[in-house]
């Protein structure tokens, strides 16, 4: 592909990613990270959480590195890819948990889609889009998880305790996202998808 072809593709991606109704929103072009970086991050996140979760819990909540990786990928790629990647990550969590059916699969997919959508709002103006994004999608994911568990006949036995843990997890995720972007600014992407 020569230069003019790549520019045409980039322009097409821009128009595909920005519907006419959103002309007031910042310009958005997917800026996907290297695939093996994403795969490695997800593997590390799953491994750490499945091995150390009870030992790194703060007030019963652990930093969900899985949702951070999903949100990071979704912010850089968009809703559709965020949804697909969230589904894969959630399926891995369901497999590791073993007692949640498909609750993590769909709730994480929804969270990925939401994170991708948030990145197309005014949040795209900042490289720190991942910080509020992580907090919001963590809570939304918990809500979706609870509903799906309910629909599977396994309602939360201690809903208030779990909500409390989810609120803590949301705050922890935002804090870790902020720290990660502070230490590794490159995680925020090249900025090509912003105006």
């Amino acid at each position: 592909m020569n230069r003019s072809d790549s520019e045409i593709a980039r322009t097409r991606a821009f128009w595909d990613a920005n519907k006419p109704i959103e002309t007031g929103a910042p310009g958005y072009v997917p800026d996907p990270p290297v695939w093996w970086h994403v795969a490695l991050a997800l593997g590390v996140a799953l491994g750490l959480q499945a091995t150390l979760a009870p030992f790194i819990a703060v007030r019963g909540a652990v930093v969900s590195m899985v949702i951070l990786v999903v949100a990071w990928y979704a912010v850089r790629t968009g809703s559709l890819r965020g949804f697909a990647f969230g589904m894969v990550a959630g399926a891995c969590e369901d497999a590791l948990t073993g007692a949640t059916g498909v609750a993590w699969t769909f709730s994480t997919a929804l969270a990925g889609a939401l994170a991708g959508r948030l990145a197309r709002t005014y949040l795209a103006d900042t490289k720190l889009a991942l910080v509020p994004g992580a907090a919001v999608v963590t809570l939304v994911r918990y809500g979706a998880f609870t509903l799906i568990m309910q629909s599977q006949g396994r309602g939360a036995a201690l809903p208030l305790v779990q909500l409390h843990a989810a609120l803590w997890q949301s705050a922890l995720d935002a804090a870790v996202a902020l720290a990660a972007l502070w230490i590794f600014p490159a995680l925020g992407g090249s900025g090509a998808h912003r105006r």
Partner: protein
Amino acid sequence: MVSIFTYRDERKLFAVVGAIIVAAVVALIQLDAAKSGKPSLITIAVGSTALFVQSAAAGLGNSLRGASATLGDAPRLYARNADLTAENRSLRGENARLREALAQAPEAEAIARTAAELPGAIVATVVGFDPENLSRIVTIDRGSEAGVHRDDGVIDEDGVVGRVVDVAPLRSTVLLAIDGASKVPAVVQSGRWWGIATGTNSRIRLQYVSQDAKLHVGDAVVTGDGRSFRAGLMLGRISEVDHPEGALYQTALIEPAVAFGRISRVLVVPHDTPADEP
């Protein structure tokens, strides 16, 4: 030819005469000392001075000899040092392994003793946890291929751990007794009062106990015969009693017998496993 007078010849003469006088004095002193059998002052002075010089020379010589030997031995010493460092590292590793084995020995022994009482029981190791920590579940390294079935009870040497809720060929998921979704029929040992033990995420709550039950702090609570557990397995001891006026039932908080924060080896007990009780 007229001889020329110079002081040089005179000085030579004086020098020769002086030397002879000094030699005579030295000879006299030495002979005198020899006759008396003691070292002379000259011998002492010269010997002492010589000793310092000899010591310094010997020290310098030894240092040079040592340095040259060290330089010559450097490759061998370097290799030896590397060998000793590697050996030290290996011994440290072995020491750590032995310490870990020593630390695990009582637990392994207790599990083996418990397993001996339950011939069909399957020994398993805890290998994972809920990644999101929302539920109190653990993953063990034994599955259907080892004979684990859904709803099998899981215990350790202290008492009830939980029950199997999901089985894969090589691994299983265990819902801990402290999870809110766990429900185990339970009996207060003294008085035989029945109730349902459910989790609070950190402890166990005994619910639906009859209002006329006499519950006391410290009472032992064991399993009743149910789908996952045979009767009599230790759940814990009552730490609080809630006896509200006018309520249909009373409840009690149980301090679990099992230390859920550090479970590592457990026993999966198929429900039809016969207990080899004394």
